[in-house]
């Protein structure tokens, strides 16, 4: 239970920090970065829930753990799409000479 009490507030802090970054940064790349921090915090909430649900001989509830793994991979896929859009935007701006 000790770990849950430590990492629960950590997760909450990470969500706040990430959200602040998303809202206050103007550069799209920095926003993508901050959004991933926010996501890390949300996954950590799941991790704390998994740890609290330890039982049946497991260190943690395997269902939230599986969901986190799915989530990390999908978050990465979404990030690649965001980065691709960002680079395309940069190229279009460069092409039209509005740098």
């Amino acid at each position, binding site marked *: 239970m000790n770990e849950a009490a430590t990492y629960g507030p950590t997760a909450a802090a990470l969500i706040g920090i990430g959200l602040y970054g998303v809202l206050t940064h103007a550069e*799209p790349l920095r926003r993508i970065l901050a959004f991933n921090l926010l996501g890390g915090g949300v996954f950590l909430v799941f991790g704390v829930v998994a740890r609290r649900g330890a039982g049946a001989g497991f260190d943690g509830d395997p269902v939230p753990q599986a969901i986190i793994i799915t989530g990390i991979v999908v978050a990465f896929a979404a990030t690649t799409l965001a980065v691709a859009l960002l680079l395309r935007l940069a190229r279009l701006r460069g092409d039209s000479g509005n740098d």
Partner: protein
Amino acid sequence: MTAALLLDLALALSAVAVALWTVAAKRAFEAIVGFIAFGLLLSLAWVRLGTVDVALTEAAVGAGAGGVLLLGASARLGTRALAEAKDVPILPLRVATGLLCALLSGALGWAILSLPTPAPSLAPLAAANLAATELGNPVSGVLLAWRAMDTLLEAVALVLAVIGVWSVAGDDAWGGIPGPAQPPRRDPALRLAARILPPIGVVIGVHIVWTGADAPGGAFQGGTVLAAMWVLAWMAGLVRPPAVSSRKMRTWVVTGPLVFIAIGLLGCFLADGFLAYPAAFTKPLILVVEAALTFSIAVALVLLLIGPPEAAS
């Protein structure tokens, strides 16, 4: 117990400090380096939370592949700014945002600490379902049998992401070789690494998938290691992926989900329903699904990292 608590506190504080640095850093490059360190600290936190499977995924996908992606993007953007100074909120607004975010964090932290005890848990159910799969790793059991639908949808999400990334290609470049127009850097040290590492890395990747049946590991973690080997060889200029228009390439990307769906449909006739495995063949079928998924995940991750075709073909 106190030593463990100290370790947890140190890890938690470092993770929060690095996250703050990532948001506060002046240049994007510094922020990304902070983000990679953050991912590695987070994977240590996962180990402390008893979820080694997640730790492996976080280190491989979050910090590793994510770091490569963002560093590459930052290098290609260079000093070019996509936003102007006037887009940054004024100081009072930033302070207000900070206060509200802190309030949100406080409320969330309070909510997490006051979760009901004993915590609701699906662990006993997962344990009961694990026996039928002949797997020793409960997380793999949940991913491939009990909640197979989530895993299938995730594999499909990767295919959709590849389509999404490809769709931002310019009209002139469509159908060409994925990746930037200029060839990757040809550094001799990198070329040496790209020749020596892949044989070792492929064995390690396959090992992580295979061992995932009974110990931490699995298709996503192993697939990422395989993808890393391909990306390494690509960065060194040793290999180029097939063109976006090639049928072979497109087949590779969808093999995993298609095999998964086909075996799932088989379950409609031979077992209890979609994505249910016939009892006698559960373990072999799971292995087939995992092998196909690993392959397609690796290909999809490589394509996502390399990006859309940019050279006019």
